[in-house]
């Protein structure tokens, strides 16, 4: 549990390279529990017949075990990855700067009509329309309504215009 397999394809890029190809976790060998390789010599003492093939097989198994142990990364033994506040802020600034260089419009807030309110309780807890404003509206509505009903169309000119007479007069002038 808690182990990840790591292939050794990019061994040459480790160590000096601190870019994205660098290992995220520490040296797996130092963090993994020590795998005790059975000493094949001590177990085959006294077994003279066929000891060489068995020893070779055990050596192979021990080699495979050692390679597997070196390729395993014990995540549980690497400690927690909690960031302190300062490191978190530094990373935030770094990532924001990177994103800003890649796409300047990505972090731009949308142009919304309704913006976020930092202290909503102040506005939500504010009193409703004051009595002064209610009185103002009531007075203004009554006054405007009376003024609108008092509008009368006052015609200062003749409603019927002798259009034909003016046209004939204009034609006679043009002639």
């Amino acid at each position, binding site marked *: 549990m808690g182990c990840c397999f790591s292939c050794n394809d990019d061994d040459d890029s480790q160590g000096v390279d601190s870019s994205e190809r660098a290992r995220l976790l520490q040296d797996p060998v130092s963090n993994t529990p020590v795998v005790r390789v059975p000493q094949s010599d001590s177990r085959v003492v006294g077994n003279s017949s066929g000891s060489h093939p068995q020893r070779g097989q055990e050596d192979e198994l021990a080699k495979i075990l050692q390679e597997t142990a070196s390729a395993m990364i014990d995540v549980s033994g690497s400690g927690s990855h909690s960031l302190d506040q300062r490191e978190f802020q530094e990373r935030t600034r770094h990532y924001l700067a990177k994103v800003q260089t890649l796409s300047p419009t990505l972090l731009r807030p949308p142009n919304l009509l309704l913006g976020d309110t930092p202290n909503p309780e102040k506005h939500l807890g504010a009193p409703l329309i004051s009595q002064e404003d209610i009185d103002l*509206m009531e007075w*203004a509505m009554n006054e405007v309504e009376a003024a*609108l009903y008092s509008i009368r169309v006052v015609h200062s000119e003749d409603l019927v215009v002798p259009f034909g007479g003016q046209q004939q007069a204009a034609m006679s002038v043009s002639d």
Partner: protein
Amino acid sequence: MEAQLEDQLNAIMARPGVVGVTCVDKRGLCLSAKGIASPNMSGVLSSIADQARKVDPANSSSPIVRLESDQGYCLVQKRSDFTLGIFKKY
């Protein structure tokens, strides 16, 4: 003809804190606008008052809508034939 309406709107403008007033007819057309009130907002104010009335249709009196901003607020109310919008500053 509409001199009395103009006089009433000027009287509203003279009230403390009032920086604009507009009167809109029932079709959303501007009858008059003074101060910071623009004739372009006539239709919007009329529509807002219409929608606010639908919130509580059982209420016989039309509600007063208060639109707040950083500098001030706007009071909107509608009656049968017209809508009145009054802009006040804090």
